[in-house]
């Protein structure tokens, strides 16, 4: 730029002189890459995600094609994952069910992170009696027996929601809300702890001194800095929500039989374990792989986002 005066004779424009500039994202990626298993897990999860999204186009077999001649068939070329007791193709069912299982995991994570962040933020900002009340509520929820209550809620509200939103949507909404609604507490605690320490930091104090309103401080200064641990907790929450949904379906109290989530497939398969173990092994392995991959990714993200705990 001609005519611009540099601050001092020795000062030159910085770009291009310090060698490679490292943005925060590159730095994060550098750290994440060191966790080999996390990178591998990302890859596996991406494959699974692509599989359930593109699966129906690549494997256009109907999930409810009944074929009694191929009843309980072992894996073969015609049925790569075998068939169930009605001769329905397991690969197609798993692709369809995987969509639901992964979607429930993501949606329930969203619910728990949003509720948890709200509760944590309110109690971290408000302090005083509001904080005490919200934390009492959090502790109370932490000591609730979650699975029995999940079962109780689903037992009591299943039929009404079915009438409201239709059988598939109703049970989806119910399961997502209930799983998310019983898992927000750790996030709330994390966010509150972050808020309590961040709000005393100098940069927040500076913003306050410049006259920033409380919502402005929270949205522009505190929340972005508090998000690291929340992202880690949210990742692990996806895994937990997938397990929770599969557990419900496995107990026969989740999705109805015509929606073959992975847990539901296991529930149907468990009585045929002696004659056709493949029926149980494929969906079980899918749940295990998804959960393991998500847990490893969470571990890798912890290395990235929580610098105190780096190797």
């Amino acid at each position, binding site marked *: 730029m001609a005519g611009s005066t540099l601050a001092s004779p020795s000062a030159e424009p910085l770009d291009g002189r310090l060698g490679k500039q490292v943005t925060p994202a590159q730095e994060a990626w550098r750290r994440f890459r060191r966790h080999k*298993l996390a990178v591998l897990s990302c890859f596996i999860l991406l494959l699974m995600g692509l599989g359930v999204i593109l699966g129906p186009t690549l494997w256009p077999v109907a999930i409810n094609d009944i074929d009694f001649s191929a009843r309980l068939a072992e894996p073969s070329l015609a049925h790569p994952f075998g068939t169930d007791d009605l001769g329905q193709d397991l690969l197609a069912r798993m692709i369809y069910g995987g969509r639901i299982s992964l979607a429930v995991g993501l949606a329930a994570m969203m619910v728990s992170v949003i509720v948890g962040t709200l509760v944590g933020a309110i109690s971290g900002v408000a302090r005083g009696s509001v904080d005490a009340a919200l934390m*009492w509520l959090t*502790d*109370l929820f*932490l*000591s*609730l*027996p*979650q*699975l*029995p*209550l999940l*079962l*109780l*809620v689903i*037992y*009591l*509200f299943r*039929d*009404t929601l079915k009438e409201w939103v239709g059988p598939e949507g109703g049970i989806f909404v119910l399961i997502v809300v209930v799983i998310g609604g019983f898992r927000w507490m750790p996030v709330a605690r994390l966010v509150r702890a972050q808020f309590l320490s961040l709000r005393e930091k100098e940069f927040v104090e500076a913003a306050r001194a410049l006259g920033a309103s409380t919502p402005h401080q929270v949205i522009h200064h505190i929340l972005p800095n508090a998000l690291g641990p929340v992202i880690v907790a949210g990742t692990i929450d996806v*895994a937990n929500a997938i*397990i929770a949904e*599969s*557990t419900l379906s*496995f*107990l*026969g*109290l989740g999705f109805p039989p015509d929606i073959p989530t992975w*847990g539901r497939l*296991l529930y149907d398969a*468990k009585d045929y*374990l*002696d004659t056709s*173990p493949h029926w*149980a092994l494929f969906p*079980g392995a899918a*749940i*295990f792989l998804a*959960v*393991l991959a998500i*847990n*490893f990714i969470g*571990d890798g993200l912890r290395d990235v986002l929580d610098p105190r705990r780096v*190797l």
Partner: protein
Amino acid sequence: MGNYLIRRLLIAVPSLLGISIVIFTILALAPGDPFSDLATNPSIPPAVRMALRAKFGLDDPVMVRYLRWLVAMLQGDWGFSLVSRVDVDTLIWQALPSTLYVIGLSQVLALIVALPVGILSAMRPYSIFDQIANTFAFIGFSLPTFFTGLLFILAFSIKLHWLPFVYQAELPYHGWQWLWEQFKQSIMPIMVLGLFQGASWTRYVRASVLDVIQLDYVTTARAKGLRERVVILKHVVRNALIPVVTLVALQIPAIFGGAIVTEQIFRVPGIGSLLINSILANDTPVIMAVTFVFSCLVILFNLIADLLYGWLDPRIAFR
């Protein structure tokens, strides 16, 4: 310590009340009416239905109904099972021992696995042993209990024929044979639950020992010539266990969740399978009572964790 116990007991009361409020709210918000089938029955006049509602107090304000329900629960009047035609508390007392037996032993197993593995991993962080243990821990808590259960049945019952896969509460044996059969039938449920818990506890123990082992007082203990064994067991582990107890206490509800699944897979006649069966049979009084019992158990185990806390760190008990 006695004083501390009383204080903790007093703190447990409000949480029990809170939980009872949550359960009752869920029940009160739930659609459906216990007399709904009477409404559709043409032979029962509306007046009789109204009289029945009034008799059971269904039209009273919510607060009154809650108090009545709470008093009944506390007095042990838990109602009558609509399906089994017995008192709910008889059903629960029959089922509770199996549940506590399986849960208790599986937690012991989890401790036996988690403590040594976690401590050894932390003593040599990033060694081969640590990495293997860490990988196994990840696999352990990523394998859902229902899948491990099925895998165990497939391997040990169906392929190898070593273990029975149906749990019997009353074994038709006596003496040593009873003990042996009992051991054989309970080994799978206990392993499934214990290994799942042990995997996540291993990571807690490792992280916590790793935090403590680098503190100055540990160096001092080594410097004055104590053997490594004594340093680890007497100086490190006791302090490292304090945060572990907190984390374990937070997991107690999850343990009961796992127990429900395990009982269902192995047909252990505990309160978990009682809950599932009564949900499938729409047996509301049993469902409510079992949920309440689960809540009480969670509170009880939290109390035990608190006492452990006081034992591990006497300063807490005196505060």
